């Protein structure tokens, strides 16, 4: 099993004491599997994604990714995990505005010491970014920027791709096209994919769906 999540809890401080967001979530994901995490706003989807991505720490429970116990890692260990094992695609793209598209695509791979210019060029070509490699992110449309973000993640060949509403900022047609490309490429790399989405239509394109409700798997 690539990902194993057990009895994860997480609260955030609120005006009247801690507000529980996750209350004991269990989740598994195999390598090459695609999973849609759905739920209402505030159900804890993004929080769970952040915990799995090593961006935050759970209050309790265990997360094991590719044999690594995330809950036992310190900041440095979790940073190394983000460089090498997981790749996160954000709704807001989070590209580096001062780097050109080509440098943005290669960026995470370079951070993890896995720079592969041929693979990056292939991704750019498959994602229709080749004509835009010399541009800066601000010169691209939203759909193009999201494709750069996808290319950046896949260029590092992560074992698990986490996508947080990756098409939330795109229109329906562009969203379908981007998702289709992303799924193709994830299949080709053999990575697992865990995607947070509101859209049941997009969730249907995944091999499995998990619905969160009030911090628990429904």
């Amino acid at each position: 099993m690539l990902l194993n999540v057990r009895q994860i809890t997480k609260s955030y401080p609120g005006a009247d004491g801690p507000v529980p967001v996750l209350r004991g979530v269990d989740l598994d994901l195999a390598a090459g599997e695609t999973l849609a995490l759905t739920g209402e706003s505030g159900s804890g989807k993004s929080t769970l994604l952040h915990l799995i991505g090593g961006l935050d720490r759970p209050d309790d429970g265990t997360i094991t990714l590719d044999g690594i116990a995330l809950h036992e890692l310190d900041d440095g260990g979790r940073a190394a995990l983000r460089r090498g094992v997981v790749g996160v695609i954000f709704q807001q793209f989070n590209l580096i505005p001062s780097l050109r598209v080509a440098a943005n695509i290669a960026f995470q791979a370079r951070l993890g010491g896995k720079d592969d210019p041929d693979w990056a060029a292939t991704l750019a070509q498959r994602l229709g970014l080749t004509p835009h490699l010399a541009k800066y992110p601000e010169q691209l449309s939203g759909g193009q920027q999201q494709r750069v973000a996808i290319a950046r993640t896949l260029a590092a060949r992560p074992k698990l791709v986490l996508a947080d509403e990756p098409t939330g900022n795109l229109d329906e047609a562009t969203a379908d096209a981007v998702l289709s490309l992303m799924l193709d490429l994830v299949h080709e790399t053999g990575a697992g994919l865990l995607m947070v989405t509101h859209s049941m239509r997009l969730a249907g394109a995944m091999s499995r769906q998990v619905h969160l409700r009030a911090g628990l798997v429904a």
Partner: protein
Amino acid sequence: MTRAALSALLSHWARNPLQLFTLLAGLALATALWSGVQAINSEARASYDAAAATLGEGQFDQLLAADGGTISQADYIALRRAGWLVSPVIEGRLNGVRLVGLDVLTAPGGLGPVALGGEADIGAFLSGGGQIFAHPDVLAQLTETGAELIAAPDVAPGTAITDIGLAQRLLQREGILTRLIVAPDQPRGQLPLAEAAPRLTLRAAQGGSDIGRLTDSFHLNLTAFGYLAFAVGIFIVHGAIGLAFEQRRPVVRTLRALGVPLNRLIMLMALELAGFAVIAGMIGVAMGYVIAAGLLPDVAATLRGLYGADVAGSLGLRPMWFLSGLVVALGGTVLAAGGALWQLARMPLLASAQPRAMAIAAGGRARLLGGLSMLLLGTAGALALWGTGLVAGFGTLAALLIGAALALPVLLDRVLAFGQTLSRGVTAGWFWADTRQQLPGLSLALAALLLAMAANVGVSTMVSSFRLTFSGFLDQRLFSELYVYADDPAQAAALEAFVSPRATAVLPLMSVSRDLADAPGELYGSRDDLTYRENWQFLDAVPMVWDVLARGEGVLVNEQMARRAGLSLGDPVTVAEGVSLPVIGIHGDYGNPIGQAIITETLFRTLYPEVTASRFGLRLNPEDVPAISAALRDNFGLPAANIINQAALKAFSMDVFDRTFTVTAALNVLTLAVAGFAMLMSLLTLAGMRLPQLAPVWSLGMTRHSLGRFELARAVMLALLTAILALPLGLGLAWVLLAIVNVEAFGWRLPMYLFPADYARLGLFALMAATLAALWPAIRLARTPPAVLLKVFSNER
């Protein structure tokens, strides 16, 4: 990983060259002003040390003529026979060069900075035509001497050293000595000085150069200015770094999300800044060198005129201040970036990645800054009231200036909020609200402007007050139309007899150097004359002070002596062995570094019968001045230097004074220019971040030209408010300088005058600087293509 992360960080600057320029220029300017001042100080100090080494000043006890005149060869021989190990020195001016004659065989310091050996062959030095060792800048003025001239860079500027015999010949003062240097080890059983040479007085070694100590206050003022200019520069750097960090928050979050550890990120950003600091530091030191080279001739003239200290008019490159400039640049960067790096270290990974709207965060910070400013202003008040010493004086200045700079955003916000409540109409309401929102982004530049303007107001008030007082003081003190100096007592007596029937009054100027209230000072004997009664003014005096003085029942002291010794009216002052008189008057004595006491002439002659007057002030009808001057030259062969016209002396004194403050004025202008630059850079940097705020207003119907005009009006209005607030701060600064720092540094307090026209002119300059600074960003905004404004909305998808 490190290379990739560093390339991402550095790429920010490549995409934002203006920000990089602001950062480098701010730091370079700050370093330049600071290191320029340091360069001047270190050059001047090196000159003093060279002078001290040449002349033995401060290192050895010295014997001087008690009447302030010269020492005869006979006195010297008498002392040697009495067992005193003394070495003769003669000093004089030859073609404008200070020529010092030493006896190399007996001088305890040898030839000072010149080592005998090599070129300095003792045989050649003493025999034949002789040798003269001179600073290279004066060699050309000594070619007529016939002696072998040797360039010696270590000799003090404007000075030449030679054998005493040759010096006496060249100066045409055979058998005359200026002073005697006393060797540190004296044999036992020598005759007391009073018996061996009663005409001479001993001046004890002072453990440092006289000139160095006299000029310390001057350099202290310069250093204070250097720090102030540096502070203004650091405000710019702080602003630039703050904005850069603010804009890079999303990048920082992304980098961390992609796996760059936080500590590595902080280290990389610190390294990046250190690199910039070194580059800017080197540029700054080079610029400082240029500033110093430009200002040094005026400083040299000032020090020569004011204190008689010779300083080289050209600048040498000293490694210490080059290095200290770099250290200051690095230190300034740490100071400016410390807060930003600390915030970065504490920023949670999942914090909002959007550039934080500064105004949102400003609320809490404003309260903190407001509290801190109140604390600092309170500290300034406490130090002003209860602090003592120069350090407390400068502490007051620092607390006042920093406290005011921190209070500025809070005060401006209150004023703008008040303007908002008064505004009518939707556009005016938006203008006030939008200006308040911009305040946090502009506050650093405005603080820099506030400091620069306050420094201008403060220093110009001090200088103008000083000038007014000094000019009045010269009128009060230089009332004789002509001043005449005799070469010896016989000539003095003949001179007095000659001028007495031709002048309204002849006022002999007699003095002795002696300790007054436990410090070196000068005691004068003053003739009871109507001229003094009509012209002199006192800071404090007993009733009928001149009558009391004429009866020999009291002593007048200058302000610096009274302050230093804590003397007030009635306190006793010892004016001669076993003779004490009460203080009956305290007078201003601006420009004099040492204590001065005055008793009546008759008492002076009784106490010091050996002293004869060699200087006279002559009261004449102004139209008689040329004829009397000519008669004195013809009848007594007096050189021009011995006859001084009052008008020429006043003009010379005012010229010295004006040159003294040329440096301060130049630094003032530079500081204001730096503040204007800070304003321009802040406005340009903010302009890019303003589009998301301005685009909606444009979309709702306001034209781009209107937006540009509003931007211009906003900058001018903020500058105007800052200028208004700078006025009381500047006057506070002037008060601290005049009433605290000046008293501690120089020993006298000056009255403070106000110069409204000067302040109005300065305000106008500040507004012009703000207008110029705002013009470019406003024009850019007015010409922003609609497509760029529309992009703001498209980016919000």
